[in-house]
Structures are given as C-alpha cells and as structure tokens.
C-alpha cells in the first residue's frame, strides 16, 4: 500500500477554480478540442444568450426573431456542428457524449433553455445517427451541418407526449402509421399521423423524427420515421407551449399528418410475407438515444449550482457596502453576511452538491464515449453470429456476464496475483468490456438524470433563498431565480424522476454492476488511506450499508410475508435507488479530486495555489460524502426496520412480562440481573407509558454494527465544513460577474 501522502496544509482556496483546474478534474487536460469548444460555447453563453435573458427574452412563449438569432450564433460557434462527425461537416473526432455534456454545461451556466434548444437538434438527429441507414445518415447529417453561406436544416424529436386530460396513457404512442399507397414493384407510401406535445425546436424545425405505432396490419409494430416540412399533407407546428421555464427554447404542440416514402423509416425495413418489418422498433431507438442525452440534462442543473457560487459570495460580501452606517474596513463592511456561519455553511452545501453532480455527469458522459465504439463492435460481432438486437442479443450477452464478472475479479487483484493471460484476454474482448461498461452506464445515466436534477432543484432553491428577495427578481445576478424554475423542467423531461427510479431499480441489481460496485468500495478505502480527509472511507462504509440493505431486501419479506424487493413495490425500490444516486455522485466527486491531486502537481499552470485548491475541494468532498452517508443511513434504516411490525403490549410474549416487584426482588439477589429485559408490568397491571415494548432485532445485529460504524465515520465532517466555510470568506473573486457581456 502507498504510504500516507496526506500532509495537513494551512493553504486554502485563493481563487475560484478556473479552466485549468476544471480540465484536470474532468479529465480533459489532453483534449484541446474540447477545451476550445468550451471557450467557444462560453462566449455565446455569456454574450448573446446572457444579453437576451437580461433583455427580457424569456418573457414570451413565442419564438421571437431575437431567440431565433441564437441559432445562427450556435452555428457560428461550432455548437451545431459539434454533434457531426468530421466527414459530415463536424470537427470533433470520435464519440460526442462528453462534448455535448460540456456544451450543455456552458450554456446552462447562463440559461438552460438555450442549452435545451441547442441539444434538441442533436436529439432529433440522434435516432438517425444511432440507428439510421448509411444513406439516411449521410443525407440528414449533410443537411444539418452548418457551412459558409448555408442555413442548416434543424430538427425536432417527437416521441409520445399525449395531450393531457384525454385519457391517453403515457406508455402508448400517440402517432399512427398506415400504408397509403403500395403499388406493385414500387416503394410503399406511408401516411403518418402524429400529434405531439411539448416538442422542442418545433417552432422552426425543418424535419421531425417521430415515433409512431402501426395502424395497419401490413406494418409490424412501432417505428421511428423522418418527416419533412415539405412533405404532402399537414405540417402544423402548433401553438407555442405555455411553459414557465426554458423560454429560450422553442416548444409547441404540433399536428402532423403527412405522406412519406417508406425509406424514411429510421434504420430501414424489410418486407416479409407482404408486411413491412422495420429494422428497429421505436423503443430500441429511443433507448439508444435517451440513455446518452439524459446525462446532458443532468449536467445542466449542476452547472447552475456551480454558477451560483460566485454571485452568492459577492452578494454576501457586498451586502452592507454603500451604507453610510457601515464604515469601510469594518468587519461588517468587508465580510457582510459572510460573518454569519449559516450563510457560508449553506453555500458550501450548494457548492458541494454542484461539484458532485458535475463530476457524476461528466463521468457518465465519458463512460458513454468509451462505450460507444465497444457497442458498435459488439453489435458487429453478434451480427456475425446471426444475432441482431432484441431479446436474442440480450440472452447472448447475459451468457457472457460470468466472464465480465471474472474480468472485474481479476482487475481488482494486484497485478502480481492476476492470471495475466486470462486477464488480458478478457480485457481485449469487446463483448466482455461492453457488458462491464454497459452495466455501469445503465446506473450512472439514470442516476445523473435523477439526482442532479431532482436534488439539484432543491439545492437551487436554497441558492435563491441565500440571495434574499433579490433572488426572485429578474435582476438577480446569475439569473438564479430563472435557473431554479428551469431545474424543475430538467427533472421532468426526457423521462421524469419516476422513470429514472424505475430504471435504476432494475439496473442496480444487475450482477455485473454489483460486482463493480464491490470493487468501488475497495477503491474508496484505498483512496481514503492515501488521502484522509476526503470522506472516501465514510462513503465506502455507506456503500457497504447500501449493499447490505439491498441484499436484505431481496431475500426477506415484510410483516405480511410479502416480498420486499420487487418491481411494483416502489416504496422499497425507489428510495434505495435514490440512496444509490447519492453514493455514486459523491464517489465521482472524490475520484475527480484524487485525479487532480495526482496530475495537478505536474502541471506548471496549476502549481500556484494548488495545495489550497486541493484542500478546499477535498473538504467539499468530505461534506458531500457525509451528507450522502447520512441520506443512505436514513433510507436504509427506514427500509430495513420499517417493514417490520412494531411489537405491541397485546402480543403474546408480553403476557409473560415480569412484574415490577419481581424484577426488584431479582435485582436484590443478583445485582444487574434485571438488565436482560426492558419491559415489565407495573404493580397496577399496566405497562409503562409507551407505544409498546421496544423493538429488538437480534437478526439485524450486523446492520446495527454497520450503522454504528457509519455514525462514527461522520467524525470530523463538521470541522471540515467549518474550514471550507472559512475559505469562502477569504477566496478572491472577480470584481463583477462576467455575464451578461
């Protein structure tokens, strides 16, 4: 084991972490393409976007010329083309998940509606990019790529939002596809009817990728289809949605009734026995799309939390300046509200949550970048075996889970103890690797979407409240009030919180994920050993408790004998999913700071002030880890104990309680002997005044030990918070916010 390298430092944060620190934290120190993208997007966000927000651009639901002008800004800044591959007019090589997450982060730092608007175009293209035929990809990517003197085509993605209050179930598609014409030897012509609701980019989209169900026995199942504004029929963009948030994105409720050739079916089709068989049903396509784009939504909310730090520090410091009653140089003048511990402590909570969310979101995005090529290779290999998607692929992959777990076991060992040949074979097997990454991605993606947005919205409210009445005005620096409201939409769209919890309740029990999860516990213990003070060890104990609880719930019943962990028992599965999110977010934050500690000293640009920055970021980790541990502890206790019936005085075992005088006599004979029971009957035949006998759970001793251990692990976390809060009073900040410019 590495010797302890942690040396307590008196250094503290000197300036807010800048790009050079962020690049290392988020593992893009070698990606100048991404660093440039960040700069480019930032200029748009803090320039035109911020000016539009400050100018009241959010105050109308309509798609105004001023809002529309942002699209040209996105094109010019390379935001639109960031999604394209270089051979289709783009400029970034390889997978784009991380790049899109960074775009979302930078835009949402100022206004998440702008982020949504830019990303919705990618969302429309994503079905084509992920599952389209080569011809579809070439055609639509070329149309959508910006170029000199060219106005790119813009798209909208229409899934299945039903019109409210008309009895439509959300699990059903609201669109239908029928065969309008099918002449012998010719391509079928489809009639597509789709009513959408809350469709982003619809105010200006040139094409729509729409999910529809078959309304014709000659078409198999569901599919996704590309609709163009020039197609014969109705392309009604609909009225703008009267949403309260994200007003810089265009959203409306379109009515589409169009005739299109069958080659617009995304992914193509075959004809078997006179029936159109789409290559992919709509579910397969949207799964491939959403599992990536949901991460960017989560990152948006985290950007807001981090963006709130600087305006809040400035507001708190300057609170009493300018008043004749507070002379310059006095503590009240210099520190303002920061003299109050509550203010700095709450801001530390906001900052820590923002760091954890960003770390989690970017880790998930990077994971998808790693997974993308593996998935394609996996699909190719499966296709060689005659397996093309669907259940057959799932079964084939499940058979390889054993090898994935074997790989994880080997990887967890010291290199000298590994079966190196076997390890290398598994490491170089794209199917095994795709299973490993897929299992993690299937947890990290919904966790990012759920925790970053859901908890983020709560924390954003806290940020607004720390700004006082100013927070809920349009003039609030950093647009905090708008960001708070926007966060609620982020928690909802692309799958509301219940959908993410539902997904997690399945994917978090995947054996390959759990095998990784166990290695993560050891990884955190080692990190805690190298650098005490990050809360890594606390988090590892909380992770053990979560795992213990999951295992307990999976193998035990409630007081009625009903199984505890099952799909429709959301009172069990959903809180446990929530608890897991806290853990993975805190873990991601700690790992990022560990990476900074490792790489930072070698970077000359970081050396000045690095010790203080690291100390502060570690303190934030510790604060967040303690908070996560507390949440996990609460959830696990509720679930483990909460489904047992509390004993009652009426229970049969209470009929044989000792009488008070019997215990007194016994105690006189054998001092201390009465300690074996806490329940007894008073002389008048009543039990003492409480709800019943205290609950005792001999079978839960291990859990009780874990809880006691976790409680002990909290030691020092508030001291850490004090130190971090103190840093907030000394950190140097710019004289004014850098937006709107």
């Amino acid at each position, binding site marked *: 084991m590495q010797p302890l390298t942690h040396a307590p430092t008196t250094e503290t944060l*000197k300036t807010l972490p800048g790009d050079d620190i962020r690049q290392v934290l988020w593992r893009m120190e070698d990606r100048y393409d991404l660093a440039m993208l960040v700069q480019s997007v930032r*200029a748009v966000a803090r320039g035109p976007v911020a000016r539009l927000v400050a100018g009241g651009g959010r105050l109308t639901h309509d798609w105004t010329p001023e809002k529309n002008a942002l699209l040209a800004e996105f094109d010019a800044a390379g935001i639109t083309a960031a999604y394209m591959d270089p051979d289709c007019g783009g400029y970034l090589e390889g997978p784009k998940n991380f790049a899109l997450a960074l775009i979302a982060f930078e835009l949402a730092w100022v206004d998440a509606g702008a982020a949504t608007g830019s990303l919705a175009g990618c969302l429309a293209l994503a079905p084509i990019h992920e599952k389209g035929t080569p011809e579809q990809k070439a055609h639509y990517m070329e149309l959508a790529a910006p170029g000199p003197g060219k106005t790119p085509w813009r798209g909208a993605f229409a899934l299945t939002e039903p019109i409210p209050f008309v009895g439509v179930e959300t699990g059903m598609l609201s669109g239908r596809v029928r065969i309008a014409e099918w002449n012998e030897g010719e391509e079928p012509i489809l009639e597509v009817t789709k009513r959408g609701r809350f469709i982003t980019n619809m105010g200006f989209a040139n094409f729509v990728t729409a999910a529809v169900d078959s309304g014709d026995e000659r078409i198999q199942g569901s599919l996704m289809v590309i609709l163009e504004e020039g197609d014969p029929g109705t392309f009604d963009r609909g009225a703008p949605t009267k949403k309260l948030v994200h007003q810089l994105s265009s959203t409306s409720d379109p009515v589409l009734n169009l005739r299109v050739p069958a080659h617009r079916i995304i992914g193509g089709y075959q004809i078997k026995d006179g029936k159109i068989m789409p290559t992919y049903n709509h579910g397969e396509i949207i799964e491939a799309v959403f599992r990536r784009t949901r991460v960017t939504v989560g990152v948006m909310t985290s950007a807001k939390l981090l963006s709130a730090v600087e305006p809040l520090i400035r507001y708190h410091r300057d609170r009493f300046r300018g008043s004749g009653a507070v002379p310059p*140089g006095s503590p009240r003048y210099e520190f303002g509200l920061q003299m109050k511990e509550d203010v700095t402590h709450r801001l530390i909570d906001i900052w820590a949550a923002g760091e954890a969310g960003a770390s989690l979101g970017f880790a998930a995005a990077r994971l998808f970048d790693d997974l993308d090529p593996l998935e394609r290779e996996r699909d190719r290999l499966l296709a060689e075996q005659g397996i093309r998607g669907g259940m057959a692929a799932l079964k084939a992959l499940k058979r390889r889970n054993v090898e994935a777990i074997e790989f994880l076991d080997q990887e967890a060992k010291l290199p000298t103890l590994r079966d190196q040949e076997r390890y290398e074979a598994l490491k170089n097997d794209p199917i095994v690797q795709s299973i490993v990454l897929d299992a993690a991605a299937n947890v990290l993606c919904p966790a990012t979407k759920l925790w970053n947005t859901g908890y983020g919205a709560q924390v954003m409210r806290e940020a607004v409240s720390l700004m006082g009445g100013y927070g809920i005005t349009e*003039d609030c620096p950093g647009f905090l009030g708008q960001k708070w409201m926007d966060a609620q939409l982020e928690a909802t769209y692309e799958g509301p919180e219940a959908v993410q919890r539902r997904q997690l309740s399945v994917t978090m029990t995947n054996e390959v994920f759990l095998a990784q999860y166990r290695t993560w516990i050891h990884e955190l213990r080692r990190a805690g050993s190298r650098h005490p003070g990050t809360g890594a060890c606390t988090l590892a104990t909380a992770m053990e408790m979560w795992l213990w609880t999951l295992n307990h719930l999976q193998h035990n019943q409630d007081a009625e004998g009903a199984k505890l962990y099952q799909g429709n028992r959301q009172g069990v599965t959903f809180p446990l999913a929530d608890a897991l999110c806290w853990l993975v977010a805190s873990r991601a934050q700690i790992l990022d700071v560990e990476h900074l500690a490792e790489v930072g000293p070698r970077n000359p640009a970081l050396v000045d002030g690095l010790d203080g920055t690291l100390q502060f970021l570690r303190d934030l980790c510790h604060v967040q880890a303690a908070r996560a541990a507390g949440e996990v502890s609460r959830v696990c206790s509720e679930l483990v104990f909460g489904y047992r019936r509390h004993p009652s005085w009426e229970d049969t075992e209470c009929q044989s309680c000792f009488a008070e005088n019997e215990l007194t006599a016994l105690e006189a004979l054998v001092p201390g002997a009465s300690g074996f029971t806490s329940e007894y009957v008073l002389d008048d035949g009543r039990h003492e005044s409480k709800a019943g006998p205290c609950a005792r759970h001999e079978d839960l001793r291990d859990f009780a030990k874990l809880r006691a251990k976790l409680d002990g692990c909290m030691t020092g976390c508030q001291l850490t918070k004090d130190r971090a809060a103190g840093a907030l009073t000394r950190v140097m900040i*710019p004289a004014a916010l850098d937006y709107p410019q």
Partner: protein
Amino acid sequence: MSFEIIVCGGLAPDPLQTLEPVPGPALKNEMMLPAVFDPWAAHALYEAAHLAAQMPGSRLRVVCLAPKAKLQQVMMKMAQKLPFELIPLDGPSNGFSDAGPTSEALAGAIQALPDVDISRLLVFGGWESATRGAGVVMQMVGERLGITEQFLAVDEVKVDAGALVIKERVEGGQHMVSRCAGPPAVLAWATGSLPEPPNHPQTGMANMRTMMPALQKAAAVAPANGVAYHEVALPKVQRETRIVKDLSAAEIARELATWVKE
C-alpha cells in the same frame, strides 16, 4: 505582392476578471487569474490577419513569450479566431519583465526562423502592453532586426501600389499619415479598427494541430533581468463597481465625467 507578417505578443491577466481585494494575509496575485492574449497585441494580430487575407500568399506567424502552460490555455480561445502559426517561447510574461531582455528574446526567435524573407517582413505588435506600458519593446525588436522603418500607435495600414499607407496616433486625437515604400517595417499597434473575431472551432482545430507540438517543444527563455525591484506596492484605490442596465452611453459618459470632476 505578399507579406511575411510576424506578430509579437504576450499574455496579460484578464482585465475583466480583476480580483476583489480581500483584507487579511491573502496576497493579491494576478497571475492566478485567467490570462488573455495581451489586448494591444491582439489588436495587432486581428489587423495582421486582415492584411494577410487581403494579400494572397502572405504568411502570418505569432511569436509569443509567455509561460507555456498559460499560453496553451490562451490559445484555446485565440486559435479559434483566425488561422496563424505559433512560435512559442516559454518564459515570463508579466509587469516585471524588462523591455530589453524581452525584445532580445523576441528578435532572437524571429532571426532563428529559417525561412523568413526579410524583404517581405512586417513585424507587428502592441504599442504597449497591458502588463506594463513601457511602450518600447517593438522599437527594440526592430532595432535588433535592423529594421529602421518603425511606426508607433498605428490605427490603420493600407497597401497602395506596393507601398504601405499608415495612420499613427498623435496628440490631440489626430492621426499622422505616413507612406512607407514597403517592407521591412515594424508596426506597433494602438487599437486599430477591427473587432475581436468570433470563435470558430474548426479554425481552432486546424491551428492546434501545429500549435500543440510547437508548445510541447517551446524553448525555455529566461531573459536576463537588468532591473532590480526593491519594493512593489499596489496603488490604493477605492473600487466602486456598479452594474447597471439600460443606461445609454451618453449617460454613462456624463456620470463618469462628473465622478472624475469630483
């Protein structure tokens, strides 16, 4: 007709990000701020790119003396604005760098370029620097390169029948117009008239393919400092930052004038 244009520049702390002084032991350290390409040199670069675009076959290079890690960060933004080649020199770039050694390093780097055609050479740079307004570096670079045609506080250059028509700022808000027969010449720019070009990541990607290897190989330059600083103190300023919306330029100017009079 085409030119060899070489722009000399350094870095400066982002002037929009000045740190708020905080009482206590924490030392104000502007080097911890995000850096930008020196605004004066940046104007020179925009003008140089404009001139190069007008004169087909021209070549644009930037010699930059700065800590290379910081320079790399700055290039993430600058490289997106226009196409140019970077010749980085890894060394100090701050208000304590003396003009003599700095000009020596810059001129040396230009002289070391194997393929410079001196008869087509235009050396551009900032009239002064945001880190230190010595205002002499470009003249000294010119002297070291043996270029005697030197123009200071330039706001405009046009090419007329092979000659350079140059506007220099002089006192009283006037411009002096000179006609120079042609290169070689040194032009130390004031603000020029061109705005900051928008970011264009595709241009940046093309630039960075050559810039990153150049940055990795950047020669360390430690200019001998001929000046000793015995004491440095920050000016005592009363900062009165105020953020206003919907105020016209005339109103802002009136308010500033009133404040100055007070």
